């Protein structure tokens, strides 16, 4: 343990962790079977989704309870386009993200005026409205049957995506792109100002910040990122149903963010991976996996307030200070 601590806390060249992450994710598929590969792909997709939500929860300080909406409508958009004969990846991707972002701006104009628990309740209500809409609008969405049989895109990409390994690398490219883009974003002036809103919105206004505009921007950004995840998800599973729009899904994404570590980018990704793995492990033994989810959540709240990643980050920084004291 001490050796590990020493290793993670010693000085490393810039970009070191980026290299580690990239190489690990590039090589991981070779250590697993097809089941593992499928889990990995899902983890990255949900990782993107959770990073998107974390922009709201961890950075802007807004606990939005309808994040599944943006994920779901984008997945539906892709499915509906597919049924309409669109086989092009980029067209589906662009439309999915665009629909999510536009919906977020419209919803945002309505919900972002309220804060705290009201915001949570209103977003939940809107999310359930969209859920009900997908359920009822059978001619477009297939109702509770959903839209089955959505094939991977046939055009726009250099390789055949029916191959799961290729698809994994496609998802990986998007994952790394989102991670890098959000990294740049949270370290930009805009990113710092949304953290200011989390700290004190009224002070931000007193300083001259248009906090409503900033919150709307963050909401749209989070929705766009989730829209991207939605398109990848529907191509991955080939199926979309109202369940992906339901509040249980929104709750699951919130758990991923909080268990992994809100306010960090990698935290939610780790949260997504941990929850997916556990969900798969536990649900093969029992139907009661939500119970276990609850237990893990409580453990996190008790022992790792800042999530799993926050816990390790603390070790890392603690190690650094330790070294500093000795020298």
């Amino acid at each position: 343990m001490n050796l590990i601590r020493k290793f993670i806390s010693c000085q490393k060249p810039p970009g070191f962790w980026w290299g580690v992450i990239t190489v690990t994710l590039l090589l991981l598929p070779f250590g697993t079977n097809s089941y593992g590969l499928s889990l990995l792909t899902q983890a990255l997709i949900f990782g993107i989704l959770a990073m998107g939500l974390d922009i709201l929860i961890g950075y802007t300080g807004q606990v939005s309870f309808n994040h599944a909406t943006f994920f779901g409508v984008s997945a539906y958009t892709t499915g509906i386009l597919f049924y309409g004969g669109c086989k092009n990846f980029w067209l589906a991707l662009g439309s999915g993200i665009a629909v999510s972002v536009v919906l977020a701006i419209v919803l945002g104009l309505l919900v972002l005026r309220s804060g705290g628990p009201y915001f949570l309740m209103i977003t939940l209500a809107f999310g359930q409205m969209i859920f009900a809409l997908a359920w009822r609008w059978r001619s477009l969405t297939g109702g509770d049957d959903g839209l089955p049989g959505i094939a991977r895109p046939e055009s726009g990409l250099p390789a055949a995506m029916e191959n799961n390994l290729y698809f994994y690398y496609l998802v990986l490219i998007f994952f790394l792109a989102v991670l890098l883009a959000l990294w740049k974003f949270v370290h930009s002036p805009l990113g710092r100002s949304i953290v200011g809103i989390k700290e004190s919105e009224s002070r931000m206004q007193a300083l001259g910040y248009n906090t409503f505009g900033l919150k709307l921007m963050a909401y749209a950004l989070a929705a766009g990122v989730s829209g991207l995840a939605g398109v990848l998800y529907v191509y991955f599973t080939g199926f979309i149903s109202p369940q992906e729009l339901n509040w249980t899904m929104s709750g699951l994404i919130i758990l991923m963010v909080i268990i992994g570590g809100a306010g960090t980018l990698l935290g939610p990704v780790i949260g997504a991976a941990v929850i997916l793995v556990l969900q798969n492990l536990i649900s093969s033994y029992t139907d009661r996996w939500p119970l276990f989810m609850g237990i893990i959540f409580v453990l996190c709240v008790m022992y790792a307030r800042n999530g799993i990643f926050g816990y390790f980050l603390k070790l890392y920084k603690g190690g650094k200070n330790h070294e500093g004291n000795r020298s």
Partner: protein
Amino acid sequence: MKAIEVKDITKKYGGLKVLRHLSLSIAPGERRAIIGPNGTGKTTLFNIITGVTKPDSGKIYVFGKNVTRLSPYHRARLGLARTFQRNNLFFNLSLLDNINLALQVNRSQLKAKDFLENWALYHRKNVKVKELSYGEQRQVELLLALVQSPRLMLLDEPTAGVSQGESRVITEMIQRLPREVTVVIIEHDMEVVFNLADRITVLNRGQVLYEGNREEVRTHPTVKDIYLGAAEEEDI
């Protein structure tokens, strides 16, 4: 042109009339204190001037511009800065990053470090604001307004709850402001008031009870009764 003109403002919270047809005007460059008993509507008046609270009726002008319908951030951009009665800071950020956020929105070329160099808290610049002492946080409250280089500053009890020594530090910070900056200060500590203010407005029950210079206020019989007397009793 006045720095602030408050015209016939009324504000109710439920059945409670907090401000009643209140009018007030303050000239550019003036140092004005607003005093009055607890719960008399001083903070509410600041919130209405800065746009945080909407009045039920009446108008607000800042440097001749009708701002009654403008949002708080628009008013801030006109050069209106404020501090809060209860510390309202970016507690989980360092002092330096607190200042950075204030500079960033004003597209200021100034560096936070260079700004802080001029103030007593410089050596605490890398400390998270929540780890500063209460008195230091009170100074940050003021620094966040100072760094905006405003034309008009509203200070809501800047020395409330701090020690005598810290109160002096904060008073000196306010005195260092360029003379052309208009300062309105709500304050219970009469020593601070008499040190800083040219003119004093006494509020009582949401109305202006009296307005005058230091001497006039010090010797005014009703003011003594309602406010100065009451404050002295509180001290005992």
